[in-house]
């Protein structure tokens, strides 16, 4: 077994186990911390694909910014066991049924799908380099790229607008 395969199995085990622990742990802060570890192992998967830029940006955006704000909010909310919402039995039953159907669909897809990965072509280009990525993003995919940034801007302005207090008439 090659070293890369071993690393892949270790990373995959970490990803799956922490993802499950995120859902199963009772304490919301523990969930958030497991999710952070999960994101780290996904960054490791990116590194295995030789996608250095993607791995680092993944860490900066998800672990470095989003999860910190998440933790922040959870810590301030002070969630207790007493505040937990008790869901009615029908909702739980529905959730179980939906889960079973969905997993059946997914499993059949995985069983019936064929591996279509052929031999790799060597193009001689260094796809790790940020220069190449930037040129492709801002030349070929210029319009979708700009649309994505406008979308983020709209989301940001919307949040500010929603959280801003309206002036009350006295």
């Amino acid at each position, binding site marked *: 077994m090659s070293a890369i395969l071993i690393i892949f199995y270790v990373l995959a085990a970490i990803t799956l186990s922490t993802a499950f622990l995120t859902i199963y742990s009772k304490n919301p802060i523990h969930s958030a*911390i497991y999710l*952070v570890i999960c994101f780290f192992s996904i960054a490791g998967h990116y590194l295995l694909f030789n996608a250095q830029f993607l791995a*680092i940006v993944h860490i900066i955006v998800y*672990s*470095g*910014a989003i999860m910190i704000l998440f933790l*922040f909010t959870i*810590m301030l909310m002070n969630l207790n066991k007493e505040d937990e919402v008790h869901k009615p039995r029908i909702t739980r039953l529905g959730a179980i049924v939906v889960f079973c159907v969905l997993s059946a669909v997914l499993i059949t897809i995985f069983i019936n799908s064929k591996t279509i990965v052929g031999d790799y072509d060597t193009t001689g280009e260094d796809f790790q380099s*940020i220069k190449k990525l930037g040129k492709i993003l801002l030349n070929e995919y210029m319009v979708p790229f700009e649309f994505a940034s406008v979308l983020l801007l709209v989301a940001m302005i919307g949040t500010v607008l929603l959280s801003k207090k309206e002036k009350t008439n006295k």
Partner: protein
Amino acid sequence: MDSAFIIEKSIFIVVIFAITMIMAMYSTWAERKVAAYLQDRVGPNRAGWGGLLQPLADGMKLFAKEEFEPNTKNKFLFFVGPAIAMSTALMTSAVIPWGDKLELFGRTVILQATDTDSALLYVFAVVSLGVYGIMIGGWASNNKFSLMGAVRAASQMVSYEVAMGLSIIALLMMTGSLSLKEISVQQAGMDWNVFYQPLGFFIFLICAFAETNRTPFDLAECESELIGGYHTEYSSMKMGFYLFAEYANMFISATIISVLYFGGYNYPGMSWAVENWGVNIGNVIGIFALFAKLCFFIFFFMWIRWTIPRFRYDQLMNLGWKILIPLSIVNIIITGICILAFK
């Protein structure tokens, strides 16, 4: 990959680790001496000559202290907090070019642990992870003051990261590369980036102060309001780790500032020295030049600490969001216009 290469890199990494630790240790001594000088006192002078053994004595004391554990369910997280703070403080040194190269035993030794294409982004990633050590430790302490300190530290670091990133973008527009090695090479001679990016340097410096939680931005451990901030409940070497991580961070950010804006290992007449005195001597002087620059910045950090009082929290947030971010966007626009006009 031959084994000589692996041995070379391992030795280099161990040396860098040792140097970072020693610098962090002696920064504590230097801080006391600088504070004493600024307040017209003598400072530590009993242990060794000029108090030079004081950091060792402090370390001994911290190891010997009783380890206190608060009544918390999260013993593991309480334990992990300082470890994360320390390891993120040490991780950044991997991509810093400490010098150009040396010729030892017939091999060319490049004085950098790894030269990745996205070194600067790596630095940012590690800096943004530094918050976890503080947040997890502060929360697991099960103490309101610790939590307040941790929340303050986190929100401060997240808000100043934005301005820091924007000030770096203006620099990157000029250098066209994220590799710290290439940025150093481009500044050969006296062609330092600070002459082209004075505003960017200024913003970066302020953000570096905020990221390392140093005065005037040390609201996270504001004694008069929060006892000791996020490390109120910590004692013994765990507390030592937090303090140590702060000094290691200071060392690393001083290094990043000198690499990005002050030419890194370059000094005037470096190419002449390399030609006439040999590669080794020329580059060893380069390493010393880098250390002289970063020692100046460490001194600058301390100088500011003992000169300027602490901000109020709303002032801090106003400075970050309403002054520094617009200023760095203006800086990006000015840089863009200048690049269009002069190139």
